[in-house]
């Protein structure tokens, strides 16, 4: 389990015999000397819960990417001969009220969930990082403006803000991603600013100024790389929150639009049939649970592995 350097993401989960993921696992190529990345990888894989989280995340990503091959049915094809049929060999996860195969919708629903999670957090980082960097490094009136705006956004609960923005933008998965991303941005502005201020006070930043580096170079080359770990951890944990947010928006009809599958919208329909067809709710609910758990485990593992206090 703790053997490093041979990530085999196909081992668990789907058991599909697919080729191993190439660009997905954050594995670093083994090197002769233990470089910083190798050391990080060793620390990460020393934690069982982090490995579990990483394996599930990789499996879910593979499931989303190769949904066309994995899903036994077209997720929006209706089988009128099998309405709300309980799980059997033809439909292992059962079918829903219009005869969709639940397993196929779970597999394709991973695209909406993970896609929304990753895209919205990417948007939040892309917006939050530059503003946080400017606020933290430039200071002064720019800092004040950016931070007061951030405070205003942070005063509104994350999900409420996402719902309001999604309602304003109109119901679609893309708009839901934008809404979630914008709602999560303020967290990243704040985190980046705090990290920048902490790193900027380090002596090596003064040393960098003393060799004649211009401010932009200090910000990008000396400060930015040193705050990446904190951003990475926060991003991983925020993906979990974004997955819940996407499911919530879809549940409310503001995200993925029917008949396209989404775990959240599946739950919305399923709530009307909880007694007659509990499988319609169990599988999407379990999927959301698993995805959120995996990203949280991975985020916690990353946080421990990147903790500067544990470095030499």
């Amino acid at each position: 389990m703790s053997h490093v350097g041979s990530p085999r993401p196909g081992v668990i989960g789907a058991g599909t015999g697919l080729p191993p993921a190439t660009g997905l696992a954050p594995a670093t190529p083994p090197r002769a000397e233990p470089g910083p990345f190798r050391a990080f990888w060793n620390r990460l894989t020393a934690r069982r819960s982090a490995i579990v989280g990483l394996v599930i995340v990789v499996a879910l990503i593979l499931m989303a990417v190769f949904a066309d091959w994995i899903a036994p049915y077209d997720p929006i094809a209706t089988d009128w001969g099998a309405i709300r049929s309980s799980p059997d060999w033809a439909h292992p996860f059962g079918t829903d009220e219009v005869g969709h195969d639940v397993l196929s919708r779970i597999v394709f629903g991973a695209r909406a969930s993970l896609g929304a999670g990753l895209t919205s957090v990417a948007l939040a980082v892309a917006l939050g990082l530059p503003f946080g960097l400017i606020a933290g490094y430039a200071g002064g009136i720019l800092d004040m403006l950016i931070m007061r705006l951030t405070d205003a956004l942070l005063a509104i609960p994350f999900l409420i803000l996402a719902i309001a923005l999604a309602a304003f933008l109109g119901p679609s998965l893309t708009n839901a991603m934008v809404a979630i991303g914008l709602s999560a941005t303020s967290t990243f502005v704040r985190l980046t600013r705090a990290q920048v201020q902490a790193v900027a006070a380090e002596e090596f930043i003064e040393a960098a100024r003393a060799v004649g580096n211009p401010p932009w170079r200090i910000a990008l080359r000396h400060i930015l790389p040193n705050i990446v770990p904190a951003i990475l951890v926060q991003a991983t944990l925020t993906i979990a929150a974004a997955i819940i947010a996407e499911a919530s928006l879809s549940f409310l009809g503001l995200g993925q639009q029917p008949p396209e599958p989404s775990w959240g919208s599946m739950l919305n329909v399923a709530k009307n049939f909880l007694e007659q067809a509990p499988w319609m709710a169990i599988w999407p609910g379990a999927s959301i649970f698993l995805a959120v758990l995996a990203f949280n485990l991975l985020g916690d593992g990353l946080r421990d592995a990147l903790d500067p206090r544990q470095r030499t």
Partner: protein
Amino acid sequence: MTESSPKTLLDVRDLGVAFDSEVGAVHAVNGVSYALREGETLGIVGESGSGKSVHVLAMLGLIPRPPGRVTGGEVLFAGRDLLALPERALRKVRGGQIGFVFQDPMSSLNPGMTVAAQIIEPLRIHLGLDGRAARARAKDLLDLVRIPNAAARLDQYPHEFSGGQRQRVMIAIGLSCRPKLLIADEATTALDVTVQAEIIGLVQELKREIGMAIIWITHDLGVVAGIADTVQVMYAGRILERGPVDDVFRDPRSAYTLGLLRSLPDLSRGRAGRRRLHQIEGAPPDMRHPPPGDPFAVRNAYATPRCLAERPPLAQAPGAAPGHLVAAWYDLPARLAAEGVSR
């Protein structure tokens, strides 16, 4: 500017630095004036808060502004007033003509960059070197500071170097562009004594090879005795005494210098001569309200009423070697003789 002799490299005139705080401005440096010749090694000693580090950082615009600010003075370096230079021009001086070595080699190197990348930075900024040429120069610099197997160590990270080696890397960075002046701010304070001795020996060798002037800031009188031509004692943001290092140590004229010298253990006396180390009573003044007179007067057993009321100028000490300056109203040798105290 006309006063500067041709050999003067750095001419600090009446430099003042203050830090604004919520409880008022703290006057960290007050009217510091001195000159440094080319190739001279100046040791600046003083306790924490004496302004010894702050005044050199202020010269190069390296104090955070706000809250720091230069309240006045001129710093002529090679004929130009550094305090009047725009930031862009000052950047060319930093790391180029003036190299820096900081106190703690553990925290002065960026943990996320290879040693080569950090040595190359000033080469790129000041000499326009890049790629292969810069790398070759970086290797030469590691050789220069006697790091064995330099080529193989270029791509290592700071955590793979020992404390002494990291300080060697810092010195390599400081010397990378052949500066006319190297400022070492407590450069050996964080190192253990054997490594300290190695680093001091290295700096002295490099000085012979390169011939740069050095400002060595420390609170260790022993280091100053070993390395400096001139010593300058600072207290409460002022120079209390300054002169050729042998002369000042043999014949101190400021009670503060005397107190510092007496606080050193004297190993030559052996076990029999063991004595309790001298301790300077009291604490430095509150620099939000600098005292009107001699800042050391309240802690000084030899102070006269005039010391409390009026600030003594830094002037040639009577009967001392030329260039041995002191800021004191009292005549320390006479007072010591009267007490019958032998040092």
